[in-house]
């Protein structure tokens, strides 16, 4: 195995306060609400899964909310986003409705994809969430295509892809960044580095510790950011999006984060070294922005409780509504194969 000296726990030990302002419109309270919506959504998904209401598997993103919310917070209507099978957060961050997202998980006719996609394929084209993909790296060439269309049609739109750390080892990653770079396409590639490719620690599969350095192969900027600091993520994304929109080509962002719930619902996370999860829980992206807001005197305990209560009620209402929806009619099986 190539030598990698620094371990993940050491990375997580840094405990700096979350950033609260970056000069971009949209305050930290707004980003916090968006993160809470995702957190509570995923908590409810876990309940649904445990209750046997979710088919197949599901991949939760608790702990990674700041990456989705920070990046999508830098976009504007018309921009597009593709993401991984751990994509509930990203699709919700684009503005997909909670009830239709729950409906898709539950296999309901009113789900985002009419019950044809499920957890790993959340898509809501109306908000720019053009696809969640269950083939690692398989969506990256598609992201390049969306950027190509934006460039060709002159729409000014930017095409963003989220990808896992593991995706940087698949061929489609290389081909996509290379083509986007050579055509100077308006694309942004965001690595959600949660340090594990399924059960394998990054160090056992990847000879470089910082994945952003891979940008050098394509002569594009590679930027690292604390992925558990939502405003910091937005700030970095904002600059990458600006570059893309101005015709300066793609950027590779590496957001350092952690998946608190393991790979999938069948993963107890036994491969984690002792103390690692606890260290990352201590720098939970939601906790950090709440603490920073409280320390800055921008939110009170009562205000925070009220906000959490509001979002929890919103999520519970959406879940309850979706649970009551009908399943797809069997006749719809053959619809949507061809136009």
């Amino acid at each position, binding site marked *: 195995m190539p030598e990698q000296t620094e371990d993940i726990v050491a990375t997580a030990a840094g405990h700096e306060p979350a950033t609260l302002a970056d000069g971009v419109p949209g305050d930290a309270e707004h980003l916090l609400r968006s993160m809470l919506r995702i957190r509570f959504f995923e908590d409810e998904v876990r309940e649904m899964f445990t209750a046997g209401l979710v088919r197949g598997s599901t991949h939760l993103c608790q702990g990674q909310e700041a990456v989705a919310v920070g990046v999508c917070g830098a976009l504007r209507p018309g921009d*597009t986003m593709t993401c991984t099978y751990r994509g509930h957060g990203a699709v919700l961050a684009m503005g997909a409705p909670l009830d239709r997202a729950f409906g898709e998980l539950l296999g309901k006719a009113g*789900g*985002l*994809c*009419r*019950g*044809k*996609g499920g957890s790993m*394929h959340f*898509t*809501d*084209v109306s908000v720019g969430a*053009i*696809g969640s*993909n269950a*083939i690692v790296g*398989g*969506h*990256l*060439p*598609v*992201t*390049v*295509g*969306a*950027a*190509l*269309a*934006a460039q*060709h*049609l002159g729409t000014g*739109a930017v*095409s963003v892809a989220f990808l896992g750390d593991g995706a940087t080892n698949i*061929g*489609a990653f290389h*081909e*996509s960044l*290379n*083509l986007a770079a*050579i*055509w100077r396409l308006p694309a942004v590639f965001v690595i959600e580095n949660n340090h594990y490719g399924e059960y394998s620690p990054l160090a056992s599969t990847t000879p470089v510790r910082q994945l952003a350095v891979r940008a050098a192969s394509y002569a594009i900027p590679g930027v690292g950011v604390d992925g558990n600091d939502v405003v910091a993520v937005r700030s970095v994304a904002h600059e990458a999006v600006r570059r893309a929109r101005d015709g300066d080509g793609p950027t590779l962002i590496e957001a350092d984060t952690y998946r608190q719930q393991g790979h999938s619902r069948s993963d107890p996370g036994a491969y984690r070294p002792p103390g690692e999860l606890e260290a990352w829980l201590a720098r939970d992206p939601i906790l950090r922005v709440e603490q920073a807001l409280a320390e800055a005197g921008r939110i009170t305990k009562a205000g925070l409780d009220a906000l959490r209560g509001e979002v929890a009620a919103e999520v519970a209402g959406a879940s309850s509504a979706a649970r009551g929806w009908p399943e797809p009619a069997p006749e719809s099986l053959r*619809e*949507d*194969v*061809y*136009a």
Partner: protein
Amino acid sequence: MSEELNYRHAIARALADEMDYDDRVILIGEDVGAAGGAFKSTDGLYERFGPARVRDTPISEQAIVGAATGAAIMGLRPVAEIMFADFAGVCFDQIANQLAKYRYMTGGQVSVPVTIRMTNGAGAGFAAQHSQGTENWFLNIPGLKIAVPGTVPDLYGLLRSAIRDPDPVLVFEHKALFAIKGTIPGGTSLVPLGTADVVREGGDVTIVAAQQMRHRAVEAAAELAREGIEATVIDPRTLVPFDDDTVIDSLRVTSRLAVVQEAPADGSWGASLISRMTTSNFELFDAPPLLIAADATPVPYAGSLEAAWLPSTDRITAEVRKQVRY
């Protein structure tokens, strides 16, 4: 006004005519632009339509197909070129898991009007990795349409239809046919996907064959006619959708079915066609159906071996003669 062209020139003509018709049509692929295509089948398009619409790519088949898919979702009508159909192996995920499934997985939120052009076909000594008819790889992937033009007007008309189609269409251009000549009728001359061509009519046997094998089937039919055996030759022109009705109509007359294909038998369109015909129209058959296929080997290099691999006119003639005398 009709015009005589060869198969190669019909490709460039169809592409140019669709690019004129719809400015959302763009071409992407390796050397499709400044070089005019590895087979010169996009010659002149770069000069006429410019580098924004005729885009040379790196050697990156995954990126080529994926970029076409993403661009199609966002409103373009891309035509991607995979230089040799065998190279579909390096972008199989993009075709099978992304392009083909995108509409279905999203519950019909998007259309994916992508055309992928690939050259297939044996006979020219390109050996195992540049000769295979990979169209059969894609038969078991719902969401794709597959065109296999065997003549100049069919190539021209099917390619234009493919580009206008709202779904992904794979168009296979057969290398052994690049020099054949044909006439494009006047007008837009679209050939609809899913419509077979009855090349020749006869009452004794129905031979179904596409591309290079269509031409050999016609030669075999002429030979058989000298012996008093009259064959109908049907060119399906598209494998998905497949025009079963034309085959059934012919079987009602001939009661005998022979399928000729430039591929091994297992998992092939010919095997599927025979399965469909015998399971739903068993009463029409007076003789066991015949699948004249290539051996189950990779395509060999040496001239003698490749000739033995490809179903020959003599083999088609002999096997059909035997079937008719069954």
